[in-house]
């Protein structure tokens, strides 16, 4: 079942004093971290439900997922004052199981970014090193879990937005099969690529939350509940020459491969010929869908409005200019362009064909291996305002994670220890509805490494240099 701290988490709800103590602890720690945009443990207290294993477990929710009674800022000035009148289906299911939603976490604006520094509202720091980013776009969720504020947090993953921050913070990050968790209530960025997922320090809690949330939802006609298959994993594929890795990540990758070998898995080198085209295809499709998904934000029905505008067009144009940050505008413009008549064929349609090619690659690869290992991101958590990795280069770095989004397959980021004092994480991919395979391997890998928290590591001065043992 859960780690030993499950007992602690469930005990918080036992009394008013414990709740207040918990709230005070969170507020104090979060002053340093900035994970929560809105923290209010009293707003959605669950009714006690004896015998329900998730009852009373506090969970944070990324602020692009609707929870009634909380705001739904999406990290943007456009929506910073909008209260959500409804709750996302996935969150509803958790609440029905007695989960305690305690607050909303920071993110890159509308999910666009790999650092959370694109948030228009506040900055989030990596609990392992507050001069560094927590990753993005679900940086707030990853930081909240790593800082010990909650045992799990919901995020969203469009091109790696759960897995990369999870690896930056040394936690698990699950991006489930596309459509297995309802997207109703997830503010859309790239509809055909994204989904709600989980960041946690506990593999069993991750699995439990996943099982509770997955369903076919009548509000989401792309949601699909298929029986997960439980093929045991024997062979794990690895990319022969992943390019552009930092020496630290490269070391961690090689080490992990050896460790998996020692655990009894057969390792096989595989090729994904389409890999080099993943990023242009991914960003073409994502921006195109984003340009349409964000068109509704125009200051008419809700959200930021330029009240000085004198005609409807000026109203919409200026409200959008004022409400959106630079990265969002860039992707909207890019997305609008690649759909334009005369350009759609060479960009958008071509990108969708590359997607087909990638899915074929995976079909072939999974004939000879049961799961596929890759680094999550070419580098570890980078400093805020790093000049080494501008927004363009950050996009290129999504190539390992975005692959799973283009193909719709599940992927799980897991911690593999530390390099140069910072967490290192890898990701494992499986065929559609193959989450069981991911849990199985990561479970076994716990013999080698399990997540630890900075505060616990800090109490052992040399902990960051060594790998943790259970």
């Amino acid at each position: 079942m859960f780690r030993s701290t499950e007992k602690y988490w469930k005990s918080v709800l036992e009394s008013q004093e414990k709740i207040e103590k918990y709230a005070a602890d969170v507020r104090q720690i979060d002053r340093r971290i900035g994970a929560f945009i809105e923290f209010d443990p009293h707003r959605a207290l669950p009714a006690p439900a004896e015998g329900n294993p998730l009852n009373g477990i506090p969970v944070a929710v990324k602020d692009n997922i609707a929870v009634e009674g909380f705001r739904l800022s999406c990290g943007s000035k456009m929506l910073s004052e909008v209260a959500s009148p409804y709750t996302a289906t996935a969150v509803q299911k958790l609440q029905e199981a007695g989960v305690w939603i305690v607050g909303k976490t920071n993110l890159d604006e509308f999910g666009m970014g790999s650092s959370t520094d694109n948030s228009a509202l506040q900055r989030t720091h990596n609990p392992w090193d507050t001069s560094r980013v927590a990753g993005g776009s679900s940086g707030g969720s990853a930081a909240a879990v790593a800082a010990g504020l909650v045992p799990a947090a919901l995020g969203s993953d469009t091109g790696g937005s759960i897995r990369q921050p999870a690896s930056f913070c040394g936690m698990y990050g699950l991006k489930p099969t596309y459509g297995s968790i309802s997207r109703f209530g997830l503010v859309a960025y790239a509809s055909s690529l994204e989904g709600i997922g989980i960041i946690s320090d506990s593999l069993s809690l991750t699995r439990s939350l996943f099982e509770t949330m997955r369903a076919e939802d009548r509000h989401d006609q792309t949601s699909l509940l298929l029986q997960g298959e439980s093929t045991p994993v024997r062979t794990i594929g690895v990319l022969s020459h992943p390019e552009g890795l930092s020496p630290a990540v490269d070391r961690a990758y090689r080490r992990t491969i050896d460790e998996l070998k020692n655990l009894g898995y057969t390792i096989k080198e595989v090729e994904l010929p389409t890999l080099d085209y993943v990023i242009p295809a991914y960003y073409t499709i994502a921006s195109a869908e984003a340009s349409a998904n964000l068109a509704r934000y125009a200051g008419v029905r809700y959200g930021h409005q330029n009240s000085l505008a004198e005609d409807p067009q000026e109203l919409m144009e200026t409200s959008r200019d004022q409400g959106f940050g630079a990265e969002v505008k860039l992707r909207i413009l890019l997305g609008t362009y690649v759909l334009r008549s005369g350009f759609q064929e060479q960009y958008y349609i071509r990108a969708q064909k590359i997607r087909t090619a990638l899915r074929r690659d995976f079909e072939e690869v999974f004939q000879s291996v049961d799961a596929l290992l890759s680094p999550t991101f070419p580098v570890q958590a980078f400093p805020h305002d790093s000049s080494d990795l501008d927004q363009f280069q950050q996009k290129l770095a999504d190539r390992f994670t975005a692959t799973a989004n283009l193909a719709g397959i599940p992927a799980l980021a897991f911690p593999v220890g530390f390099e140069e004092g910072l967490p290192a994480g890898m990701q494992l991919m499986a065929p559609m509805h193959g989450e069981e395979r991911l849990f199985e391997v990561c479970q076994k890998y716990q013999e080698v490494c399990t997540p630890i928290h900075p505060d616990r590591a800090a109490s052992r001065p040399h902990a960051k240099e060594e790998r943790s043992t259970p």
Partner: protein
Amino acid sequence: MDTRELYTTASLAQLSLTETEAEKLSREVSRMLDYFARMREIDVDSLEPTTHTFSKVNRLRKDVKENGERLSHMADSLLDNAPELEDRFIVIPNVL
């Protein structure tokens, strides 16, 4: 991408841009589009585009107002978020 193309695109996206913004965005969009050009290197002409991630199942909703469906009973709280209202109408300036 020249600034004229950018302004046409911005107009389609209903985004007003300052001159500084336009210059910067023009460069950044061009950079991305140049990078996208590499998609021409791979031969995908014989493939069908993936338009839907899953598309095998027909999904339909019954034409019945669900009992207890909260979403259809929150008109007032939706209007609370409107920037300007008059007698339940949402108000915007008129084209003159």
